[in-house]
């Protein structure tokens, strides 16, 4: 169960107005330390540890320099900047994702007049919700999620991430075990297939579209199952639970070394955009977009430590780029508007 930003399950007291405005109502740190020491023997160790840590920190130059009380009143500070939260959908652990997304935040802080932070969600529906409720100003989301957000409350694609070839496109890849006798999509008839959730572009919408183009109706498959994410699909195929599965090309490439091969690669589709709410002031949109576009493909070699789907830079995005996908949704009638959730 994702615990990323589930404010529904948070008591009101935890984010009330006073705490938002940082009014101090808590007990002093020194007192808590003293109390920890004296309460029970099993708390003495943390106290000694904390004291040991606190002393050198308190004596260090950086601590003295950071002391707000020492500063003059007439200051300009980063803390005065409006905060822009960028939401990411990512099915892996928070620590890893924060580490690889933080360089992007640093870049944006450096090139705009705003402060930035990364927020994470493991669920595409909640990512759309983050944008809707303004818990995040910008979200990196799948194409289907973007179109869903746009139709519900208005969303603007800012940029499209480039792939390792410097193109702002992605591919959906049907994968199968290397030893599999399957050679084309047409041979999937009567076989089992793993797809992603209804919200997924690369592991659900596009694969279904590709199957139709290859003349394979879903009813002709032996079995079809919808798994939580691309990693789960690739693992399931690798374990032999399915004859094939459809995943994002990045996942397909990762699993190539582990024993999967590409059965079929889709036509290129515009990559998953970074999306802003339509009501976000134009100057904010422009500022963030300009800063992102400074990240070009030529500089990718200096960004080896960045997350793979963001490190190659960005291209401008517009609603027109996603029209073909919108048409696929409309023509297939299986898009991910509200009806999808109802189907689930």
């Amino acid at each position, binding site marked *: 169960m994702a615990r990323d930003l589930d404010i529904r399950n948070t008591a009101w007291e935890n984010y009330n107005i006073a705490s938002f405005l940082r009014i101090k109502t808590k*007990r002093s740190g020194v007192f808590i330390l003293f109390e920890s020491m004296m309460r*029970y023997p099993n708390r003495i160790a943390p106290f000694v540890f904390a004291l040991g840590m606190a002393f050198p920190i308190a004596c260090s130059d950086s601590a003295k320099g950071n002391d707000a009380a020492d500063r*003059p009143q007439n200051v300009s500070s980063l803390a005065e900047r409006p905060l822009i939260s960028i939401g990411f959908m990512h099915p892996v652990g928070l620590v890893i994702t924060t580490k690889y997304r933080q360089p992007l935040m640093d870049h944006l802080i450096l090139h705009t007049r705003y402060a930035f932070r990364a927020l994470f969600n493991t669920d595409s529906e909640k990512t759309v919700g983050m944008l809707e409720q303004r818990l995040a100003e910008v979200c990196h989301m799948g194409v289907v999620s973007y179109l869903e957000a746009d139709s519900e409350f208005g969303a603007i694609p800012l940029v499209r991430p480039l792939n390792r070839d410097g193109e702002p496109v992605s591919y959906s890849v049907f994968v199968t075990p290397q030893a599999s006798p399957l050679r084309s999509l047409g041979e999937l008839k009567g076989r089992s297939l793993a797809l992603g959730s209804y919200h997924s572009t690369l592991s659900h919408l596009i694969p279904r579209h590709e199957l139709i183009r290859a003349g394979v109706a879903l009813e002709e498959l032996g079995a079809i199952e919808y798994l939580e994410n691309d990693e789960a699909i690739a693992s399931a195929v690798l374990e032999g639970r399915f004859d094939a599965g459809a995943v994002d090309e990045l996942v397909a490439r990762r699993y190539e070394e582990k024993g999967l091969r590409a059965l079929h690669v889709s036509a290129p589709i515009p990559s998953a955009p970074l999306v802003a709410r339509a009501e976000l002031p134009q100057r904010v949109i422009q500022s963030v977009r300009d800063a992102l576009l400074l990240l070009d493909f030529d500089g990718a070699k200096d960004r080896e430590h960045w997350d793979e789907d963001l490190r190659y830079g960005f291209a401008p995005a517009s609603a027109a780029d996603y029209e073909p996908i919108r048409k696929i949704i409309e023509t297939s009638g299986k898009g991910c508007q509200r009806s999808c959730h109802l189907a689930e």
Partner: protein
Amino acid sequence: MTSPIFSEGPPTVGLLDRLLPTLLSLTPTPVLLFVSTSSDIYLRNQSLLQFQYRVLAPFAKLSLVTLVIGILLAALSKRHRAFRPAMSVYYLTGPVFLLFAFFRGLQGVLPGIHVLYGTAIGLAFWPFLLLIATAVLNRRLHTPSIVRAFAVFGMILLAYEGGTLLYNIWFLTPRTTSTKADVTRPLPSGSQTLPNIYHFVFDAYQTDLLEHTLSEETQRALGGFTYFPNNRAEWGWTPMSFGTFLSGRDYFYDRTGAEFVSAAFDSKASFLYWLKSLGYETVAFVPGGWIGQDTFFDRFVSHDEAAKDDLLPLNTEALWNLWLYSNTPAALRDAVVRRHWFAGLNEEDMNLLENGRLLPSSSPVTSYLGFERMMEAERNLSPTGRYTLVHVIIPHYPLKLRADCSYSVGSATTEAIEQAQCALKLILDFTSLLKDLGRFDDSLILVHGDHGGPYRTENERLVIMGRNRSLDTVLLVKPMGVSARGELEKLDLETSLLIIPSIIMSSVTDAGSRPPRAAPWSRSRAVVPLVEGELIESAERILRRNGFSLGETRDIESSQYAAGAVISQDPPAYERGDDTTEVSVLVSSGPPKGPNVMPDFVGRDVAEVSEWLRQKQLPSSVIHKVSNPVVPEGMVVSQSPRAGAKTDGNTEIVFYVNAGN
């Protein structure tokens, strides 16, 4: 061997010298058993317990009773050796309990330790340990040196526990120093001609919740109200939502979110400022989390404070439950306590208990009790010229209130629909009270949420949706001068909470008009909105939303206003808007520019600062290194003087630069 307790010879020292160590040596057991354990729980939950330290009274009594038992045993064992083992048990109970607490704290740290705490064998182990310890130490315990050691231990415990509690109660318990909390305090009465305004904010009151609780009967009872089923909040969380509907403006990212919210509570941006300037008496009944937001309120009552008498027995019972749960061995707790005393708790409550935090009353319950006190106060408050804001955490999570607003102490989760029924009941109760007091017809009554909940309606059933929460939120308005005839009127108009200041200020502006003017939402340009202080793009949006357009725009240099901010407007804010379609503004072009104006280096690289300093050759400049984990190394985090300030050769210029993590 002689001892200060059991010596049978003539006293060789004074009474005080003999009795005081004895008395002190008896204190560790009651202090460890009851005072330490209960104060620990209290201190961790004191804000949830509304800082009512009187909840510790039962434990103080238990400590005294235990001490009296100790004194009796000491007296009896002096005369009868048969009582010495019992006296030893008394002495050793405290240390054994300390050992028990120590091992309990190691659960999850040391493998296998739970055997001593969570199994039947462990349950038998502790009394067995106590008996063995008594048998082994029975004779030695009564030596003067051991008794003195116990006395010193008791003294330290008393000093520490007493000190901890006194420190908290004396220094950290918030006190109502403001007379604003006193609703009986006489005030210069509000204007005789201005009708009352009642403004209710029901937290997380989603439109779907109201729809599912409206019956024909309640719709009749809400006669006079207009309901806007297509109303939306601008933000999905409370502080920012308050910022929008108190100011009628959306956040434009030209300041921090905290500054935006703060301005809506204590600056001209707030419609409260304008109501006060018109002579309104302002009253707020709000949750405890509103600390410090009373700038524009003549009376400011927190629900916690208003309901403290009702909450005391609740809090006492909750602390008692928590103490029992925390200090009963798990095996016994699972076998007996959980089955009987805690049978009504759900999984969520149990999780809170496991973490030593059982919400004794929860925000909805406190809000409900505060609402009740507000209803009582209404009878004695001014019948005219008063604006009353009521914010309740209902029907917001956690779900604790039943349909009739009854509740159980710290437990028993109800349904979302039930808590929504309670919200509707409170609205109906209050309108009924206003009718009884003859204040209903004249008053403006606004009822709305601040955002929605995590629901959607599917096949006419309320279900939890995949997103955190909806922005669909209730808006009900009973205009001034409208009586309770008919039933609830539904209006299929797209609205947002940004309309609130416009409804309030146009109602006030139109009060007493003959013939009565149409409702503000049914006519364009009902009132001129406030755009002062906004960036020009934001001002234009606000004007457009209210049916106006931007008129003449003139620029002027200003050190006070940021470049692009509106300094003044014509016509002024909250005047009737019938006679004009345009609003002219004076806009700041920023501070005067020149060679002696401080540039903005915040967010830029320290190399740029170095270059600038080299060019300027300023003698008084300092670069401090600081550690900031969320920005790149070498970035200027802050500077003094601030950007735009005038400098001369003697101004000390300071930069704080991130030295890396």
